[in-house]
């Protein structure tokens, strides 16, 4: 049972790490603010979410698990707030949307 | 064994990144960029305190260095910009 739990937890954590890698690559390679925002929110929500899920399988007490979930919830709220604020203000300040060149 | 090895990699990465980042904060002429680099520096510094087995100091660094100071600096920049605009308006008026 422990072996299965460990393997599952490792798989979830590695999947989370992959999303953080994808977020960083997106941040570096995407062409404008809005597409970078898209890459970033995936890393925020899914990357940390999968890491937290992987660590949840290893917790020893209820309070630890609740703390992990609270951290995830806080990051979700913070990420959503920041993404909306940045996107709306970028539009208000006329930062141009990227268009593929024909 | 491998845990120790990865611990070393973590420490070496931190030790390389922190001085470079501190140098960039000092030489950057763009104030907004410097503030955001400073926030990133505070984050890495918190990780360094964690590696030095001082979680209480890391807690303070995360709250003060990466959180509050960054917000105060950004607010100060906004205030400076408002002042500058106000000054120009006065000169024109």
């Amino acid at each position, binding site marked *: 049972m422990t072996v299965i739990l*460990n393997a599952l937890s*490792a798989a979830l*954590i590695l999947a*989370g*790490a992959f999303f*953080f*890698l994808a*977020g*960083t690559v997106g*941040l*570096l390679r995407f062409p404008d603010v809005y597409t*970078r*925002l898209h890459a*970033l929110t995936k*890393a*925020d929500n899914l*990357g*940390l979410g999968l*890491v*937290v899920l992987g660590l949840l399988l290893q917790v020893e007490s209820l309070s630890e698990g609740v*703390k*992990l979930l609270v*951290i995830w919830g806080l*990051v979700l709220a*913070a*990420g959503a707030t*920041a993404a909306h*604020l*940045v996107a709306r203000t970028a539009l208000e*300040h006329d*930062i141009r949307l990227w268009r593929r060149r024909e | *064994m491998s*845990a120790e*090895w*990865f*611990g070393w*990699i*973590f420490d070496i*990465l931190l030790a390389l*990144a922190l001085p470079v980042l501190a140098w*960039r904060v000092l030489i950057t002429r*763009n104030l907004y*960029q410097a503030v*955001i680099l400073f926030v990133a520096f505070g*984050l*890495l510094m918190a*990780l360094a305190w964690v590696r030095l087995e001082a*979680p209480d100091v890391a*807690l303070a660094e995360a*709250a003060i260095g*990466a*959180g*509050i100071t*960054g*917000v105060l600096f*950004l607010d100060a*920049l*906004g*205030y400076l*910009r408002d002042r500058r605009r106000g000054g120009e308006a006065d000169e024109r008026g």
Partner: protein
Amino acid sequence: MSGLYLGVASFLLLTIVVGLIRIVRGPTPADRILAAQLFGTTGVAALLLLAQGVSSPPLRDVALVLALLAAFAAAAFVRRAWTGGEE
């Protein structure tokens, strides 16, 4: 297992260091604050993995504080210090 935790934490630190390029290059202030936002989340994940890897529960509180303050910098930036388009 602790090797895996520390290994993934090191990898996350590496993504932070690589992401610094975006802060330096910009071009708009919004790109820089987005990079800082990503660093905050990555730092939280790295701290949680470290807490498990070196079995030191207080580190979770550091991650909690970091998560709590993550939105503040972006909000302060947007409300107070936004300068507009490209520099």
